[in-house]
Protein backbone atom coordinates (compact mmCIF):
# COMPACT_ATOMS: atom_id res chain seq x y z
CA UNK A 1 0.00 0.00 0.00
CA UNK A 2 3.01 2.31 0.40
CA UNK A 3 3.37 2.40 -3.36
CA UNK A 4 -0.18 3.58 -3.89
CA UNK A 5 0.21 6.11 -1.07
CA UNK A 6 3.21 7.58 -2.80
CA UNK A 7 1.26 7.67 -6.02
CA UNK A 8 -1.65 9.37 -4.26
CA UNK A 9 0.61 12.14 -2.98
CA UNK A 10 2.28 12.59 -6.33
CA UNK A 11 -0.94 12.81 -8.26
CA UNK A 12 -2.53 15.13 -5.70
CA UNK A 13 0.40 17.49 -6.17
CA UNK A 14 0.05 17.28 -9.92
CA UNK A 15 -3.69 17.80 -9.63
CA UNK A 16 -3.23 20.97 -7.52
CA UNK A 17 -0.79 22.37 -10.03
CA UNK A 18 -3.25 21.56 -12.78
CA UNK A 19 -6.05 23.29 -10.88
CA UNK A 20 -3.92 26.41 -10.41
CA UNK A 21 -3.12 26.50 -14.09
CA UNK A 22 -6.79 26.11 -14.95
CA UNK A 23 -7.72 28.87 -12.46
CA UNK A 24 -5.25 31.20 -14.11
CA UNK A 25 -6.75 30.43 -17.48
CA UNK A 26 -10.28 31.21 -16.26
CA UNK A 27 -9.16 34.55 -14.82
CA UNK A 28 -7.83 35.66 -18.16
CA UNK A 29 -10.29 33.77 -20.32
CA UNK A 30 -10.77 36.47 -22.95
CA UNK A 31 -7.08 37.03 -23.44
CA UNK A 32 -6.42 33.32 -23.38
CA UNK A 33 -9.05 32.83 -26.07
CA UNK A 34 -7.33 35.37 -28.26
CA UNK A 35 -3.98 33.84 -27.53
CA UNK A 36 -5.20 30.31 -28.07
CA UNK A 37 -6.49 27.53 -25.86
CA UNK A 38 -4.24 27.32 -22.78
CA UNK A 39 -4.80 23.55 -22.79
CA UNK A 40 -2.68 23.78 -25.93
CA UNK A 41 -0.57 26.90 -25.56
CA UNK A 42 0.52 26.26 -21.96
CA UNK A 43 2.66 23.30 -21.04
CA UNK A 44 0.64 20.94 -18.85
CA UNK A 45 2.43 19.22 -15.98
CA UNK A 46 1.87 15.79 -17.53
CA UNK A 47 3.71 17.00 -20.63
CA UNK A 48 6.74 17.99 -18.62
CA UNK A 49 7.02 15.82 -15.51
CA UNK A 50 7.49 12.12 -15.45
CA UNK A 51 4.50 9.93 -14.93
CA UNK A 52 4.06 6.99 -12.56
CA UNK A 53 6.50 4.14 -12.64
CA UNK A 54 5.30 0.68 -13.56
CA UNK A 55 5.68 -0.37 -9.93
CA UNK A 56 3.16 2.17 -8.66
CA UNK A 57 -0.03 0.23 -9.29
CA UNK A 58 0.31 -3.58 -9.32
CA UNK A 59 -3.48 -3.71 -9.61
CA UNK A 60 -4.61 -0.62 -11.48
CA UNK A 61 -7.49 1.68 -10.67
CA UNK A 62 -9.45 4.09 -12.89
CA UNK A 63 -8.24 7.67 -13.33
CA UNK A 64 -8.91 9.94 -10.34
CA UNK A 65 -11.08 11.97 -12.72
CA UNK A 66 -13.50 9.02 -12.88
CA UNK A 67 -14.06 8.82 -9.11
CA UNK A 68 -17.77 9.52 -9.58
CA UNK A 69 -18.22 6.30 -11.57
CA UNK A 70 -19.12 4.06 -8.65
CA UNK A 71 -21.78 1.72 -7.37
CA UNK A 72 -24.39 3.59 -5.38
CA UNK A 73 -27.03 2.42 -2.97
CA UNK A 74 -30.44 3.72 -1.89
CA UNK A 75 -30.50 3.44 1.88
CA UNK A 76 -34.26 3.57 2.30
CA UNK A 77 -34.90 0.53 0.09
CA UNK A 78 -33.82 -2.02 2.70
CA UNK A 79 -33.66 -2.37 6.49
CA UNK A 80 -29.88 -2.73 6.61
CA UNK A 81 -26.88 -2.65 4.25
CA UNK A 82 -26.09 -6.38 4.62
CA UNK A 83 -29.23 -7.84 3.07
CA UNK A 84 -29.37 -5.13 0.46
CA UNK A 85 -28.64 -3.92 -3.02
CA UNK A 86 -26.47 -1.45 -4.87
CA UNK A 87 -26.52 -0.27 -8.45
CA UNK A 88 -24.25 -0.35 -11.50
CA UNK A 89 -23.52 3.14 -12.97
CA UNK A 90 -24.92 2.30 -16.41
CA UNK A 91 -25.07 5.96 -17.44
CA UNK A 92 -21.26 6.23 -17.31
CA UNK A 93 -20.47 2.94 -19.07
CA UNK A 94 -20.33 2.06 -22.73
CA UNK A 95 -20.10 -1.11 -24.76
CA UNK A 96 -21.56 -4.25 -23.20
CA UNK A 97 -18.99 -5.46 -20.66
CA UNK A 98 -19.42 -4.28 -17.05
CA UNK A 99 -16.11 -3.69 -15.22
CA UNK A 100 -15.83 -6.12 -12.32
CA UNK A 101 -15.51 -3.43 -9.65
CA UNK A 102 -18.73 -1.77 -10.82
CA UNK A 103 -20.97 -4.85 -11.03
CA UNK A 104 -23.97 -4.28 -8.77
CA UNK A 105 -24.17 -6.31 -5.57
CA UNK A 106 -27.10 -8.06 -3.96
CA UNK A 107 -26.45 -10.00 -0.77
CA UNK A 108 -28.78 -11.58 1.77
CA UNK A 109 -26.16 -12.23 4.46
CA UNK A 110 -23.38 -9.91 3.34
CA UNK A 111 -20.46 -10.61 1.00
CA UNK A 112 -18.85 -13.73 2.44
CA UNK A 113 -15.05 -13.94 2.43
CA UNK A 114 -14.48 -17.58 1.58
CA UNK A 115 -11.07 -19.25 1.71
CA UNK A 116 -10.81 -21.18 -1.57
CA UNK A 117 -8.62 -23.82 0.07
CA UNK A 118 -11.50 -24.54 2.48
CA UNK A 119 -14.22 -24.31 -0.14
CA UNK A 120 -16.01 -27.48 -1.23
CA UNK A 121 -18.74 -28.23 -3.75
CA UNK A 122 -20.96 -31.16 -2.79
CA UNK A 123 -23.37 -32.92 -5.12
CA UNK A 124 -25.89 -35.04 -3.26
CA UNK A 125 -29.41 -36.41 -3.45
CA UNK A 126 -30.73 -38.46 -6.36
CA UNK A 127 -27.37 -39.31 -7.91
CA UNK A 128 -25.46 -42.55 -8.36
CA UNK A 129 -22.48 -41.26 -6.36
CA UNK A 130 -22.65 -38.31 -3.96
CA UNK A 131 -19.49 -36.29 -4.58
CA UNK A 132 -17.28 -33.62 -3.04
CA UNK A 133 -15.07 -31.41 -5.18
CA UNK A 134 -12.26 -29.06 -4.18
CA UNK A 135 -11.53 -25.96 -6.24
CA UNK A 136 -8.52 -27.82 -7.59
CA UNK A 137 -10.79 -30.62 -8.82
CA UNK A 138 -13.09 -28.15 -10.55
CA UNK A 139 -10.18 -26.57 -12.42
CA UNK A 140 -9.59 -29.92 -14.13
CA UNK A 141 -12.96 -30.09 -15.87
CA UNK A 142 -13.36 -28.82 -19.44
CA UNK A 143 -14.35 -25.17 -19.25
CA UNK A 144 -16.25 -22.67 -21.40
CA UNK A 145 -16.44 -18.89 -21.84
CA UNK A 146 -19.75 -17.07 -22.20
CA UNK A 147 -20.96 -13.49 -21.90
CA UNK A 148 -24.28 -13.22 -20.05
CA UNK A 149 -26.28 -10.51 -18.33
CA UNK A 150 -27.29 -11.01 -14.73
CA UNK A 151 -30.36 -8.93 -13.89
CA UNK A 152 -31.93 -8.84 -10.45
CA UNK A 153 -35.61 -9.83 -10.61
CA UNK A 154 -36.33 -6.58 -8.72
CA UNK A 155 -34.56 -4.32 -11.24
CA UNK A 156 -36.96 -1.39 -11.88
CA UNK A 157 -39.24 -2.79 -9.17
CA UNK A 158 -39.45 0.56 -7.40
CA UNK A 159 -41.04 2.00 -10.54
CA UNK A 160 -44.21 -0.16 -10.63
CA UNK A 161 -46.36 2.63 -9.21
CA UNK A 162 -44.77 5.34 -11.28
CA UNK A 163 -41.60 7.36 -11.75
CA UNK A 164 -39.69 7.32 -8.50
CA UNK A 165 -35.89 7.26 -8.73
CA UNK A 166 -34.07 9.79 -10.88
CA UNK A 167 -31.36 8.05 -12.86
CA UNK A 168 -30.92 4.87 -14.87
CA UNK A 169 -28.34 3.71 -12.32
CA UNK A 170 -31.20 3.48 -9.81
CA UNK A 171 -34.05 2.49 -12.12
CA UNK A 172 -32.11 -0.06 -14.22
CA UNK A 173 -28.74 -0.63 -12.52
CA UNK A 174 -29.40 -4.00 -10.85
CA UNK A 175 -27.69 -5.60 -13.82
CA UNK A 176 -24.24 -6.48 -15.04
CA UNK A 177 -22.84 -8.22 -18.09
CA UNK A 178 -19.52 -10.03 -17.95
CA UNK A 179 -17.69 -12.93 -19.55
CA UNK A 180 -17.79 -15.99 -17.32
CA UNK A 181 -15.34 -18.84 -17.39
CA UNK A 182 -16.58 -22.00 -15.80
CA UNK A 183 -17.51 -25.66 -16.02
CA UNK A 184 -20.83 -26.62 -17.63
CA UNK A 185 -23.04 -27.80 -14.76
CA UNK A 186 -23.98 -30.75 -16.99
CA UNK A 187 -20.45 -32.13 -16.66
CA UNK A 188 -20.50 -31.99 -12.86
CA UNK A 189 -23.92 -33.63 -12.66
CA UNK A 190 -22.73 -36.27 -15.11
CA UNK A 191 -19.78 -37.02 -12.88
CA UNK A 192 -22.20 -37.83 -10.04
CA UNK A 193 -24.70 -39.55 -12.34
CA UNK A 194 -28.25 -38.15 -12.06
CA UNK A 195 -30.87 -40.82 -11.39
CA UNK A 196 -33.86 -40.90 -13.75
CA UNK A 197 -36.20 -39.52 -11.06
CA UNK A 198 -33.90 -36.51 -10.52
CA UNK A 199 -35.94 -33.66 -12.05
CA UNK A 200 -34.82 -30.64 -10.01
CA UNK A 201 -31.65 -29.27 -8.47
CA UNK A 202 -31.23 -27.18 -5.34
CA UNK A 203 -28.04 -25.09 -5.49
CA UNK A 204 -27.01 -23.69 -2.11
CA UNK A 205 -24.61 -20.92 -1.10
CA UNK A 206 -21.96 -21.05 1.63
CA UNK A 207 -22.81 -17.62 3.05
CA UNK A 208 -24.86 -16.98 6.19
CA UNK A 209 -28.09 -16.67 4.20
CA UNK A 210 -27.63 -20.22 2.92
CA UNK A 211 -29.27 -19.08 -0.32
CA UNK A 212 -31.20 -21.83 -2.10
CA UNK A 213 -33.36 -22.02 -5.23
CA UNK A 214 -35.06 -24.85 -7.10
CA UNK A 215 -34.03 -25.14 -10.75
CA UNK A 216 -35.52 -27.67 -13.20
CA UNK A 217 -33.07 -30.30 -14.45
CA UNK A 218 -33.71 -29.31 -18.07
CA UNK A 219 -32.17 -25.88 -17.44
CA UNK A 220 -29.37 -27.33 -15.31
CA UNK A 221 -28.32 -29.62 -18.16
CA UNK A 222 -28.78 -26.95 -20.83
CA UNK A 223 -26.62 -23.87 -20.32
CA UNK A 224 -25.88 -23.40 -16.60
CA UNK A 225 -22.24 -22.89 -15.66
CA UNK A 226 -20.36 -23.26 -12.42
CA UNK A 227 -18.12 -20.22 -12.85
CA UNK A 228 -14.86 -19.24 -11.20
CA UNK A 229 -13.79 -16.36 -13.44
CA UNK A 230 -15.45 -13.13 -14.56
CA UNK A 231 -13.91 -10.94 -17.26
CA UNK A 232 -10.77 -13.04 -17.10
CA UNK A 233 -9.98 -12.82 -13.39
CA UNK A 234 -11.27 -14.66 -10.35
CA UNK A 235 -14.80 -13.78 -9.26
CA UNK A 236 -14.93 -10.78 -6.97
CA UNK A 237 -15.74 -11.55 -3.33
CA UNK A 238 -19.07 -9.77 -3.70
CA UNK A 239 -19.89 -11.87 -6.79
CA UNK A 240 -19.41 -15.21 -5.04
CA UNK A 241 -15.66 -15.90 -4.89
CA UNK A 242 -14.53 -18.56 -5.41
CA UNK A 243 -17.55 -20.16 -7.15
CA UNK A 244 -20.96 -19.10 -8.39
CA UNK A 245 -23.77 -20.56 -10.43
CA UNK A 246 -24.54 -18.93 -13.78
CA UNK A 247 -28.15 -19.35 -14.94
CA UNK A 248 -28.29 -17.58 -18.32
CA UNK A 249 -31.33 -15.41 -18.98
CA UNK A 250 -32.93 -16.18 -15.60
CA UNK A 251 -33.50 -13.89 -12.63
CA UNK A 252 -30.35 -13.00 -10.71
CA UNK A 253 -31.50 -14.53 -7.43
CA UNK A 254 -30.98 -17.99 -8.93
CA UNK A 255 -27.30 -17.34 -9.67
CA UNK A 256 -26.23 -18.78 -6.30
CA UNK A 257 -22.97 -17.22 -5.04
CA UNK A 258 -20.34 -18.97 -2.91
CA UNK A 259 -21.86 -22.16 -4.35
CA UNK A 260 -21.16 -25.05 -1.99
CA UNK A 261 -23.80 -27.69 -2.69
CA UNK A 262 -26.12 -28.95 -5.39
CA UNK A 263 -28.81 -31.38 -4.36
CA UNK A 264 -30.73 -33.40 -6.92
CA UNK A 265 -34.38 -34.08 -6.11
CA UNK A 266 -37.66 -35.16 -7.68
CA UNK A 267 -39.69 -32.08 -6.65
CA UNK A 268 -38.98 -28.38 -6.15
CA UNK A 269 -38.23 -27.28 -2.58
CA UNK A 270 -40.40 -24.12 -2.42
CA UNK A 271 -37.85 -22.37 -0.28
CA UNK A 272 -38.11 -18.84 1.06
CA UNK A 273 -36.63 -17.23 -2.05
CA UNK A 274 -39.26 -18.85 -4.29
CA UNK A 275 -42.33 -18.43 -2.06
CA UNK A 276 -42.08 -15.37 0.19
CA UNK A 277 -39.74 -13.68 -2.31
CA UNK A 278 -39.45 -13.89 -6.10
CA UNK A 279 -43.16 -14.62 -6.47
CA UNK A 280 -45.21 -12.01 -8.31
CA UNK A 281 -48.45 -10.92 -6.61
CA UNK A 282 -51.31 -9.87 -8.87
CA UNK A 283 -54.27 -7.61 -8.13
CA UNK A 284 -56.55 -10.63 -7.60
CA UNK A 285 -54.45 -11.69 -4.59
CA UNK A 286 -52.89 -14.69 -6.33
CA UNK A 287 -49.24 -14.87 -7.29
CA UNK A 288 -47.12 -16.27 -10.07
CA UNK A 289 -44.29 -18.47 -8.94
CA UNK A 290 -41.22 -19.72 -10.79
CA UNK A 291 -41.08 -16.61 -13.01
CA UNK A 292 -37.54 -17.45 -13.97
CA UNK A 293 -36.91 -15.80 -17.34
CA UNK A 294 -36.12 -12.11 -17.66
CA UNK A 295 -38.15 -10.56 -20.48
CA UNK A 296 -36.72 -8.32 -23.20
CA UNK A 297 -35.86 -4.88 -21.86
CA UNK A 298 -33.92 -1.75 -22.75
CA UNK A 299 -33.01 1.65 -21.39
CA UNK A 300 -31.42 4.80 -22.76
CA UNK A 301 -28.39 5.37 -20.55
CA UNK A 302 -27.50 8.81 -21.98
CA UNK A 303 -29.02 11.34 -22.01
CA UNK A 304 -30.56 10.37 -18.69
CA UNK A 305 -31.08 12.11 -15.34
CA UNK A 306 -27.48 11.48 -14.22
CA UNK A 307 -26.14 12.23 -17.70
CA UNK A 308 -27.72 15.50 -18.89
CA UNK A 309 -26.89 17.17 -22.21
CA UNK A 310 -24.28 19.80 -21.43
CA UNK A 311 -23.16 20.69 -24.94
CA UNK A 312 -26.21 22.48 -26.31
CA UNK A 313 -27.99 21.84 -29.63
CA UNK A 314 -26.36 20.01 -32.51
CA UNK A 315 -25.02 16.49 -32.84
CA UNK A 316 -26.15 14.27 -29.96
CA UNK A 317 -25.33 10.65 -29.24
CA UNK A 318 -28.23 8.77 -27.69
CA UNK A 319 -26.86 5.54 -26.22
CA UNK A 320 -28.52 2.63 -24.53
CA UNK A 321 -28.55 -1.03 -23.57
CA UNK A 322 -30.96 -3.85 -24.39
CA UNK A 323 -31.16 -7.48 -23.33
CA UNK A 324 -33.46 -10.50 -23.27
CA UNK A 325 -33.45 -13.67 -21.21
CA UNK A 326 -34.84 -15.50 -24.21
CA UNK A 327 -32.21 -14.77 -26.84
CA UNK A 328 -30.54 -11.91 -28.67
CA UNK A 329 -31.68 -8.37 -29.48
CA UNK A 330 -31.77 -7.92 -33.26
CA UNK A 331 -33.48 -4.52 -33.03
CA UNK A 332 -34.18 -1.56 -30.76
CA UNK A 333 -36.55 1.29 -31.64
CA UNK A 334 -36.06 4.77 -30.20
CA UNK A 335 -38.50 7.67 -30.03
CA UNK A 336 -37.60 11.25 -29.19
CA UNK A 337 -41.23 12.45 -29.04
CA UNK A 338 -42.71 10.16 -26.40
CA UNK A 339 -43.82 7.44 -28.79
CA UNK A 340 -45.52 9.35 -31.58
CA UNK A 341 -42.81 8.35 -34.03
CA UNK A 342 -40.18 5.63 -33.72
CA UNK A 343 -36.98 4.93 -35.60
CA UNK A 344 -34.64 1.98 -35.53
CA UNK A 345 -31.50 2.50 -33.51
CA UNK A 346 -28.08 1.34 -34.68
CA UNK A 347 -26.87 -1.81 -32.93
CA UNK A 348 -23.14 -1.83 -32.23
CA UNK A 349 -20.92 -4.56 -30.87
CA UNK A 350 -21.37 -8.30 -30.48
CA UNK A 351 -24.87 -9.77 -30.47
CA UNK A 352 -24.68 -12.67 -28.03
CA UNK A 353 -27.36 -14.92 -26.62
CA UNK A 354 -28.71 -13.65 -23.25
CA UNK A 355 -26.19 -10.81 -23.19
CA UNK A 356 -26.46 -7.05 -23.13
CA UNK A 357 -26.54 -5.32 -26.51
CA UNK A 358 -25.45 -1.71 -27.09
CA UNK A 359 -27.49 0.61 -29.31
CA UNK A 360 -27.06 4.18 -30.52
CA UNK A 361 -29.14 6.80 -32.25
CA UNK A 362 -27.14 9.75 -33.56
CA UNK A 363 -29.37 12.80 -33.94
CA UNK A 364 -29.06 16.51 -34.56
CA UNK A 365 -30.75 18.00 -31.46
CA UNK A 366 -32.69 21.17 -32.24
CA UNK A 367 -32.76 22.21 -28.57
CA UNK A 368 -36.43 21.42 -28.09
CA UNK A 369 -37.58 19.09 -25.28
CA UNK A 370 -37.10 15.38 -25.86
CA UNK A 371 -39.32 12.58 -24.64
CA UNK A 372 -36.91 9.67 -25.00
CA UNK A 373 -37.92 6.02 -24.98
CA UNK A 374 -36.39 2.79 -26.24
CA UNK A 375 -38.20 -0.42 -27.22
CA UNK A 376 -36.33 -3.73 -27.52
CA UNK A 377 -37.28 -6.56 -29.88
CA UNK A 378 -35.84 -9.97 -29.04
CA UNK A 379 -34.98 -12.86 -31.33
CA UNK A 380 -38.24 -14.65 -30.44
CA UNK A 381 -40.35 -11.73 -31.74
CA UNK A 382 -41.27 -10.37 -28.32
CA UNK A 383 -41.48 -6.56 -28.24
CA UNK A 384 -40.83 -4.72 -24.96
CA UNK A 385 -44.17 -3.49 -23.58
CA UNK A 386 -45.07 -0.18 -22.00
CA UNK A 387 -45.37 0.01 -18.23
CA UNK A 388 -49.09 0.64 -18.66
CA UNK A 389 -49.51 -2.55 -20.72
CA UNK A 390 -47.77 -4.53 -17.97
CA UNK A 391 -49.87 -2.93 -15.22
CA UNK A 392 -53.06 -3.83 -17.10
CA UNK A 393 -52.13 -7.49 -16.72
CA UNK A 394 -50.22 -7.53 -13.44
CA UNK A 395 -51.37 -4.58 -11.33
CA UNK A 396 -48.79 -2.64 -9.31
CA UNK A 397 -47.82 -5.08 -6.53
CA UNK A 398 -45.84 -7.75 -8.36
CA UNK A 399 -42.50 -6.13 -7.33
CA UNK A 400 -40.40 -8.18 -9.76
CA UNK A 401 -39.97 -8.40 -13.54
CA UNK A 402 -40.69 -4.80 -14.51
CA UNK A 403 -39.43 -4.59 -18.10
CA UNK A 404 -41.67 -1.67 -19.11
CA UNK A 405 -40.47 1.06 -21.46
CA UNK A 406 -38.65 3.89 -19.66
CA UNK A 407 -39.21 7.56 -20.49
CA UNK A 408 -36.71 10.38 -19.93
CA UNK A 409 -37.92 13.96 -20.37
CA UNK A 410 -35.09 16.24 -21.48
CA UNK A 411 -35.80 19.96 -21.26
CA UNK A 412 -34.38 22.87 -23.33
CA UNK A 413 -31.39 23.10 -20.99
CA UNK A 414 -30.59 19.43 -21.52
CA UNK A 415 -31.65 18.42 -18.00
CA UNK A 416 -33.20 14.96 -17.97
CA UNK A 417 -35.84 13.54 -15.67
CA UNK A 418 -37.53 10.19 -15.03
CA UNK A 419 -41.17 10.63 -16.01
CA UNK A 420 -44.17 8.71 -17.20
CA UNK A 421 -46.14 9.96 -20.19
CA UNK A 422 -49.64 9.41 -21.51
Amino acid sequence: MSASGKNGTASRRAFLRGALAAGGAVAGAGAARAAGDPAITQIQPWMQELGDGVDVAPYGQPSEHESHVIRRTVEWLTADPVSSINFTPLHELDGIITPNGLCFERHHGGAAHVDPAEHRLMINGLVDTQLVFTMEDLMRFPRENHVYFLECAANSGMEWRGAQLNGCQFTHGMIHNVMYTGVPLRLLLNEAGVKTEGKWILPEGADASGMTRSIPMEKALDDCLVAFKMNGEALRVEQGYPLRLVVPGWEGNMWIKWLRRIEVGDEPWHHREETSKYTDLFADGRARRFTWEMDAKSVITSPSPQAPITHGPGPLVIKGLAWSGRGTIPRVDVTIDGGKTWQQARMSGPSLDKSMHAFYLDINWDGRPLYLQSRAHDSTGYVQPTKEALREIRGVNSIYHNNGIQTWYVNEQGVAENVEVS
Partner: protein
Amino acid sequence: TAPDAKLGLGREALAEEVAAWDIDVRPDGTGLPDGSGDVLTGEELFVENCAVCHGDFGEGVGRWPVLTGGFDSLTNDRPVKTTGSYWPYLSTVYDYINRAMPFGNAQSLQPDDVYAITAYLLYMNDQVDDDFTLSKENFLEVEMPNANGFYMDDRAETEYPVFTGAPCMENCKDAVEITMHAAVLDVTPEETAAAAAEAAGE
Protein backbone atom coordinates in the same frame (compact mmCIF):
# COMPACT_ATOMS: atom_id res chain seq x y z
CA THR B 1 -25.92 -36.84 -28.29
CA ALA B 2 -23.59 -39.27 -26.57
CA PRO B 3 -23.32 -38.96 -22.81
CA ASP B 4 -20.22 -37.19 -21.52
CA ALA B 5 -17.51 -39.49 -20.24
CA LYS B 6 -16.82 -39.38 -16.52
CA LEU B 7 -13.45 -37.88 -15.63
CA GLY B 8 -13.06 -39.51 -12.23
CA LEU B 9 -12.70 -36.18 -10.46
CA GLY B 10 -13.88 -35.48 -6.93
CA ARG B 11 -14.39 -38.06 -4.23
CA GLU B 12 -17.39 -39.75 -2.67
CA ALA B 13 -19.16 -37.65 -0.02
CA LEU B 14 -19.25 -39.27 3.41
CA ALA B 15 -22.63 -39.77 5.08
CA GLU B 16 -21.73 -37.39 7.92
CA GLU B 17 -20.66 -34.72 5.41
CA VAL B 18 -23.97 -34.94 3.56
CA ALA B 19 -25.81 -34.85 6.88
CA ALA B 20 -23.92 -31.72 7.95
CA TRP B 21 -24.85 -29.73 4.86
CA ASP B 22 -28.10 -31.28 3.65
CA ILE B 23 -30.51 -29.50 5.99
CA ASP B 24 -33.19 -28.52 3.49
CA VAL B 25 -36.86 -29.26 4.10
CA ARG B 26 -39.59 -29.69 1.47
CA PRO B 27 -43.38 -29.21 1.63
CA ASP B 28 -43.87 -32.98 1.78
CA GLY B 29 -41.82 -33.06 5.01
CA THR B 30 -38.68 -34.49 3.41
CA GLY B 31 -35.69 -33.32 5.43
CA LEU B 32 -37.49 -32.60 8.70
CA PRO B 33 -35.33 -33.70 11.64
CA ASP B 34 -36.64 -35.55 14.69
CA GLY B 35 -37.88 -33.19 17.37
CA SER B 36 -40.71 -31.01 18.63
CA GLY B 37 -41.41 -27.69 20.31
CA ASP B 38 -44.43 -25.96 21.85
CA VAL B 39 -45.84 -22.44 21.63
CA LEU B 40 -44.73 -21.27 25.07
CA THR B 41 -41.15 -22.44 24.56
CA GLY B 42 -41.27 -20.77 21.19
CA GLU B 43 -42.37 -17.51 22.76
CA GLU B 44 -39.37 -17.51 25.10
CA LEU B 45 -36.98 -18.29 22.27
CA PHE B 46 -38.58 -15.68 20.03
CA VAL B 47 -38.31 -12.95 22.65
CA GLU B 48 -34.70 -13.89 23.26
CA ASN B 49 -33.51 -14.34 19.67
CA CYS B 50 -35.94 -12.68 17.29
CA ALA B 51 -38.03 -9.93 18.84
CA VAL B 52 -35.28 -7.30 18.71
CA CYS B 53 -35.89 -7.09 14.94
CA HIS B 54 -39.27 -8.73 14.40
CA GLY B 55 -41.09 -7.37 17.47
CA ASP B 56 -42.65 -9.30 20.37
CA PHE B 57 -45.62 -10.31 18.20
CA GLY B 58 -43.85 -10.60 14.84
CA GLU B 59 -45.11 -7.15 13.91
CA GLY B 60 -41.63 -5.97 12.83
CA VAL B 61 -39.43 -3.27 14.37
CA GLY B 62 -38.63 -0.33 12.12
CA ARG B 63 -38.07 -1.65 8.63
CA TRP B 64 -37.44 -5.27 9.66
CA PRO B 65 -39.82 -7.85 8.19
CA VAL B 66 -43.34 -8.28 9.55
CA LEU B 67 -43.89 -12.00 10.21
CA THR B 68 -47.51 -12.12 11.30
CA GLY B 69 -50.95 -10.80 10.40
CA GLY B 70 -51.94 -9.23 7.10
CA PHE B 71 -54.76 -11.71 6.53
CA ASP B 72 -57.04 -10.94 3.59
CA SER B 73 -54.76 -8.08 2.57
CA LEU B 74 -53.39 -9.59 -0.64
CA THR B 75 -55.91 -7.76 -2.82
CA ASN B 76 -55.35 -4.48 -0.96
CA ASP B 77 -53.57 -1.55 -2.49
CA ARG B 78 -50.78 -2.18 0.04
CA PRO B 79 -50.74 -5.92 0.79
CA VAL B 80 -49.07 -7.19 3.98
CA LYS B 81 -47.33 -10.42 3.01
CA THR B 82 -46.38 -12.50 6.08
CA THR B 83 -45.78 -16.13 6.98
CA GLY B 84 -49.48 -16.26 7.85
CA SER B 85 -51.04 -14.27 5.04
CA TYR B 86 -48.78 -15.23 2.15
CA TRP B 87 -46.39 -18.14 2.68
CA PRO B 88 -47.79 -21.33 1.11
CA TYR B 89 -45.89 -23.95 3.11
CA LEU B 90 -44.92 -24.36 6.76
CA SER B 91 -41.85 -26.31 5.63
CA THR B 92 -40.44 -23.05 4.26
CA VAL B 93 -40.79 -21.40 7.67
CA TYR B 94 -38.88 -24.22 9.32
CA ASP B 95 -36.24 -24.41 6.61
CA TYR B 96 -35.57 -20.69 6.46
CA ILE B 97 -35.36 -20.11 10.22
CA ASN B 98 -33.09 -23.12 10.50
CA ARG B 99 -30.72 -22.10 7.67
CA ALA B 100 -30.58 -18.33 7.91
CA MET B 101 -31.92 -16.97 11.21
CA PRO B 102 -31.24 -15.22 13.55
CA PHE B 103 -29.75 -12.70 11.12
CA GLY B 104 -26.06 -12.54 12.05
CA ASN B 105 -26.12 -15.81 14.00
CA ALA B 106 -27.42 -18.31 11.47
CA GLN B 107 -27.59 -22.05 12.19
CA SER B 108 -27.31 -21.50 15.96
CA LEU B 109 -30.72 -23.04 16.75
CA GLN B 110 -31.37 -26.71 17.57
CA PRO B 111 -34.19 -28.65 15.85
CA ASP B 112 -36.42 -28.42 18.94
CA ASP B 113 -35.85 -24.63 19.01
CA VAL B 114 -36.90 -24.28 15.39
CA TYR B 115 -40.02 -26.41 15.94
CA ALA B 116 -40.91 -24.24 18.95
CA ILE B 117 -40.38 -20.91 17.15
CA THR B 118 -42.38 -22.21 14.18
CA ALA B 119 -45.18 -23.21 16.58
CA TYR B 120 -45.11 -19.73 18.13
CA LEU B 121 -45.39 -18.12 14.68
CA LEU B 122 -48.43 -20.32 13.97
CA TYR B 123 -49.91 -19.20 17.28
CA MET B 124 -49.28 -15.51 16.55
CA ASN B 125 -51.00 -16.03 13.20
CA ASP B 126 -54.04 -17.49 15.04
CA GLN B 127 -53.53 -20.85 13.37
CA VAL B 128 -53.08 -22.89 16.57
CA ASP B 129 -53.91 -22.58 20.28
CA ASP B 130 -51.36 -21.69 22.95
CA ASP B 131 -51.03 -25.33 24.10
CA PHE B 132 -49.99 -26.53 20.64
CA THR B 133 -46.85 -28.63 20.16
CA LEU B 134 -45.36 -28.90 16.67
CA SER B 135 -43.34 -32.02 15.85
CA LYS B 136 -41.98 -33.94 12.92
CA GLU B 137 -44.98 -36.25 13.30
CA ASN B 138 -47.80 -33.67 13.06
CA PHE B 139 -46.00 -31.16 10.84
CA LEU B 140 -47.91 -32.01 7.65
CA GLU B 141 -51.28 -31.59 9.39
CA VAL B 142 -50.81 -27.83 9.46
CA GLU B 143 -52.27 -26.20 6.36
CA MET B 144 -51.25 -22.68 5.50
CA PRO B 145 -54.06 -20.24 4.59
CA ASN B 146 -52.47 -19.20 1.28
CA ALA B 147 -51.37 -22.69 0.19
CA ASN B 148 -53.39 -22.34 -3.01
CA GLY B 149 -52.41 -18.75 -3.71
CA PHE B 150 -49.72 -19.51 -6.28
CA TYR B 151 -49.62 -20.72 -9.86
CA MET B 152 -46.91 -21.52 -12.35
CA ASP B 153 -45.49 -18.71 -14.52
CA ASP B 154 -48.00 -18.29 -17.35
CA ARG B 155 -46.36 -15.46 -19.29
CA ALA B 156 -46.03 -17.70 -22.35
CA GLU B 157 -49.84 -17.80 -22.60
CA THR B 158 -50.96 -14.50 -21.04
CA GLU B 159 -48.29 -12.04 -22.14
CA TYR B 160 -46.11 -13.32 -24.94
CA PRO B 161 -48.93 -13.33 -27.54
CA VAL B 162 -49.94 -9.79 -26.49
CA PHE B 163 -46.39 -8.46 -26.72
CA THR B 164 -45.40 -9.83 -30.12
CA GLY B 165 -46.08 -8.52 -33.60
CA ALA B 166 -45.06 -5.42 -35.52
CA PRO B 167 -45.37 -2.34 -33.29
CA CYS B 168 -46.52 1.11 -34.42
CA MET B 169 -43.70 3.21 -35.92
CA GLU B 170 -45.45 6.40 -37.11
CA ASN B 171 -48.39 8.53 -36.01
CA CYS B 172 -48.75 6.32 -32.96
CA LYS B 173 -50.45 8.93 -30.77
CA ASP B 174 -51.71 12.50 -31.02
CA ALA B 175 -50.43 13.98 -27.80
CA VAL B 176 -47.85 13.19 -25.15
CA GLU B 177 -48.36 14.50 -21.64
CA ILE B 178 -46.21 13.90 -18.59
CA THR B 179 -48.30 12.05 -16.03
CA MET B 180 -45.67 11.55 -13.31
CA HIS B 181 -42.32 13.09 -12.34
CA ALA B 182 -39.61 11.38 -10.27
CA ALA B 183 -38.28 14.81 -9.34
CA VAL B 184 -41.53 15.64 -7.57
CA LEU B 185 -41.13 12.62 -5.33
CA ASP B 186 -37.41 13.46 -4.91
CA VAL B 187 -36.21 10.37 -3.08
CA THR B 188 -33.12 9.71 -5.20
CA PRO B 189 -29.97 9.59 -3.09
CA GLU B 190 -27.54 12.37 -3.68
CA GLU B 191 -25.43 13.78 -0.89
CA THR B 192 -28.22 13.45 1.63
CA ALA B 193 -29.87 10.11 1.03
CA ALA B 194 -30.97 9.72 4.62
CA ALA B 195 -32.64 13.11 4.67
CA ALA B 196 -34.43 12.36 1.43
CA ALA B 197 -35.70 9.06 2.77
CA GLU B 198 -36.98 10.83 5.86
CA ALA B 199 -38.75 13.37 3.71
CA ALA B 200 -40.41 10.51 1.84
CA GLY B 201 -41.82 9.29 5.13
CA GLU B 202 -39.74 6.16 5.39
